[in-house]
């Protein structure tokens, strides 16, 4: 199984990861609405087989290589030097696996209540777009996927969301599109300027990043145009205001996907199209981005503390968590970067699970107001226990996955971004504060009449949450398989930055510690 990795792969697995959901979406949209069960079956089979492919990718990934693997490349629009260029390294790998796993869970576990066929078709389209974004090694191709993701997400929020769904969906669409507008100009300018070094017009990421030398000042402008798009997507303070609206108004499935994978497009973008493409400008922009990241950590935490809506609270906690990821990214040490990638996965799993649990609460009580909920622990102890584990993972308690990522980020960042790290560390305490306080208000106390009928977790919900808890505990106790696949790629990225700038990360690779 290991031998297959470095040799060219006969089966274009990465292309299949993108195309299978597209085909699934087309089949689903062509099926009759009178056969809801068959529609769901098709969607399930498609998403599960995509998940199986992503897991196969994980198992046959060569963990000793930091370069791009399973590369598949075909000319697409030759006139403009655009190719269908997909590849996966240790950073993209876990994004792909996260995407592959979250979608079937959402499809199986969350009921959209109406128009299930269209809902499933949009969901599968979304999966294709997200997969494509994580796998693209061509600037144009990346932009296409990055932008196309908006359409299904827009319809998912607008069609299946809560009261203010149209407002939230439109805000989400326009915010992200505004960021992309700058990025599009940046992408074209990057290709145009790089073509002088390369001798031909190309949008190929690897070629531009490795072989062209964008002059300092232009590189900074170009980086800024990309950074705007990613900052909106992450979202960084002060362009984060679309996120609480979109998350709160989205249907549960939409929120899980939005938090789980869509936000990662921004942080992943910073790694792949920030550090890798513009190392000099990234180092130059470090202080600004680190500051925004830390403000995000504190702002998100404080705002979360003050929320009365449980779902909004989780949404603001995302702002804080993603601040940590950006902190680790721009600390540019291999430990911090590894931590960032781990934290991207962790946040996807923990926050995804939190949104699922909040969705279950809403299904039972038709409210998300914290003030309306109390004493649930006494009527639904299993539910409360599951919530507790997921919440602790989100807080970052040792032994669970959140700790591994947060710890690596903080340790790694301390070397190169000391004071930012010190301030950000208080965010860990605040996370414990707002989550535990919310837990106390919702689950503890005497149960009142309205909450007395709160149903215990059923089998479907239980098995769904069990998968999440399994990942949470496994990663927390045994992160080694994950870390050893991420580290070579991260190491290569740090070397890439060091070889092109004055910046020097402190010696010593990432530790394998963190568990237990």
């Amino acid at each position, binding site marked *: 199984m290991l031998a297959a990795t470095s040799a060219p792969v006969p089966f274009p697995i990465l292309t299949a990861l993108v195309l299978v959901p597209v085909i699934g979406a087309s089949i689903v949209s062509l099926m009759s609405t009178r056969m809801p069960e068959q529609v769901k079956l098709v969607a399930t089979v498609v998403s599960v087989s995509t998940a199986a492919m992503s897991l196969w990718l994980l198992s046959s990934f060569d963990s000793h290589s930091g370069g791009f693997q399973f590369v598949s490349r075909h000319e697409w629009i030759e006139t403009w030097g655009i190719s269908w260029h997909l590849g996966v390294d240790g950073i993209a790998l876990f994004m792909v696996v996260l995407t592959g796993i979250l979608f079937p869970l959402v499809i199986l576990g969350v009921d959209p209540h109406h128009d299930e066929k269209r809902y499933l078709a949009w969901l599968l389209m979304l999966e294709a777009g997200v997969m494509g974004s994580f796998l693209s090694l061509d600037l144009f191709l990346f932009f296409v996927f990055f932008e*196309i993701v908006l359409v299904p997400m827009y319809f998912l929020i*607008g069609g299946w969301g809560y009261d203010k769904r149209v407002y939230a969906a439109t805000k989400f669409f326009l915010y992200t599109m505004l960021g992309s*507008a700058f990025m599009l100009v940046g992408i074209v300018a990057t290709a145009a300027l790089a073509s002088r070094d390369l001798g031909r017009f190309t949008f190929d990421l690897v070629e531009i990043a490795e072989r062209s030398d964008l002059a300092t000042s232009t590189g900074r402008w170009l980086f800024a145009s990309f950074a705007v798009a990613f900052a909106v997507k992450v979202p960084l303070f002060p362009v984060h205001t679309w996120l609480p609206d979109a998350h709160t108004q989205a249907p549960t499935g939409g929120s899980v996907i939005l938090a789980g994978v869509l936000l990662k497009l921004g942080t992943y973008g910073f790694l792949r199209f920030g550090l890798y493409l513009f190392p000099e400008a990234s180092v130059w922009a470090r202080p600004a981005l680190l500051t925004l990241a830390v403000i995000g950590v504190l702002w998100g935490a404080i705002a979360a503390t003050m929320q009365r809506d449980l779902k909004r609270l989780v949404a603001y906690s995302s702002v804080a968590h993603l601040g940590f990821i950006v902190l680790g990214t721009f600390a540019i040490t291999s430990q911090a970067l590894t931590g960032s990638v781990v934290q991207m996965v962790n946040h996807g799993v923990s926050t995804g699970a939190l949104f699922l649990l909040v969705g279950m609460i809403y299904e039972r009580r038709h409210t998300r107001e914290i003030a309306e909920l109390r004493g649930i622990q006494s009527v639904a102890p299993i539910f409360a226990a599951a919530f507790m584990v997921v919440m602790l993972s989100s807080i970052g308690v040792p032994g669970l996955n959140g700790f591994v990522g947060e710890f690596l980020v903080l340790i790694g960042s301390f070397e190169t971004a000391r004071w930012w790290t010190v301030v950000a560390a208080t965010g860990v305490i605040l996370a414990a504060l707002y989550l535990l306080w919310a837990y106390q208000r919702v689950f503890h106390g005497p149960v009142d009449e309205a909450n007395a009928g709160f149903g215990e977790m059923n089998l479907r919900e239980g098995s769904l949450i069990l998968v999440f808890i399994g990942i949470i505990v496994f990663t927390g106790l045994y992160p080694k398989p994950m870390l050893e696949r991420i580290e070579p790629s991260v190491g290569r990225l740090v070397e890439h930055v060091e070889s092109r700038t004055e910046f020097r990360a402190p010696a010593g690779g990432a530790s394998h510690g963190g568990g237990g």
Partner: protein
Amino acid sequence: MERGLVAPGIEWGDLAPLLILLAGACAVLLCGSLLRGWSRTLTTSLTVAVSVSAAVGGAVQWERDSTVIGKYLVSDAILIDRFAALSIVLICGSAAVVALLLHAHLAGSPDDGVELQTLLLTGAIGGIVLAAANDLIVLFLGLEILSLSLYLLAASNRRREQSQEAGLKYFVLGGFASAFLLYGIALVYGATGSTSLDMIVVGLSGKARIDGSDTLLLVGIGLLLVGFAFKVSAAPFHVWTPDVYEGSPSPVTAFMASAGKVAAFVALMRVLVTGFERRVDDWRPAVWALAVAAVVVGSLMAVTQSNVKRMLAYSSVSHAGFVLVGVEAASHPGSDGLASSGLYLVAYSVLVLGSFASVMVVAGQEDSATSLADFAGLGRRRPALALAFSTLLLAQAGVPLTSGFVAKFGVIKSAVDAKSYAIAIIAMVAAVVGAYLYLRIMVSMWLDEPTDDSRPRVQRAVAIVVGLAVAFTLLVGFLPGWLLNATESLAR
């Protein structure tokens, strides 16, 4: 200096598309008025057949070697080059499509549509002459043939007051614009001693003055720009657009927005980029300002509208701005701006034809139900139509994997290549504002509750038009290579 009038040689074969259209227009008019039992279906079929054969003629000319460098006809009055051939294909294709739409539009009314189809064909003739003119006087003739046909077509719905109003408004304001253009031609003639574009080029290269003191010429170019900006509805000369687009019968609006714009834009590019090549530094700032004004005003104003036809009118202003971004890029040496503008025109023409065809279905028998509320719940009433219209709207917004994105990307790429970063960023940001408008229409179609459960009637002709437009939009979105290779040759 005494000289007898020498009749110029006429290349009948190369003029075939024009002659086909002319003969067709006469045939439609004569058959319709003289033959007993001549039905509307026959009129439409004849018009479509004539337009399609003229379009084929254009396609044949595109393929000829002589077209690549350009072939002069009728004593240099007409130049058939790749741009002219492309315009012939687009204008005649648009005429064929609009003939089908007119047929559907007239279903159930006593009109037999003979004069409408005739005017459509004469409009196409005017458009082609305008796009292929190599002499400012011929250009003006083409413009007038096109405009007069459009004025009448705009006012052709006698049962709707707005249609009369649109025709009259368009006529009065269009007359003004023509006067500006004509005055510009006169001044340019005064400055260069000729109305022929080739002679203008020669005249300007002889006495190249870069101090900008050539007042006559500069004012002439300015007035020409005003006339063109009116015709392509670029802000601030767009004020007629929403009223006329809203009031005219939907098929006529589709023709104005596609064929009318293509012809005027090709003429604009030919005059500016070829005729006044030596004076690029003079006209570049003007085009820059027009482009920025058009994208910004078009996007901002579109957002405030509540009538879909008016929204699309303003969005057409912003699209005109995008084409001008390409023209601005073309004013820099070595740019492929003309190719991008040509590509944009192709993509936009198809999009706008499909969009107005969709609007026409919802507008209903009276052609008046075009407010946003009339589109409410279309996704439930007519899912296929709503999906098709949404695809076209997303393409107009510039979402990837559609022809609209390829077109926008091409224009932005040309602008960035020419180092016009500011205009590229302004245009993209304006496009985001504009996207809100398309989202509003989609929200209405998919997310709002229908006000009534009526299912608008989709006639077969309209279904074919919308289907073809969507197919083209997606084909170009996924596989743009062939179209890019074709339009690449437009940049000289």
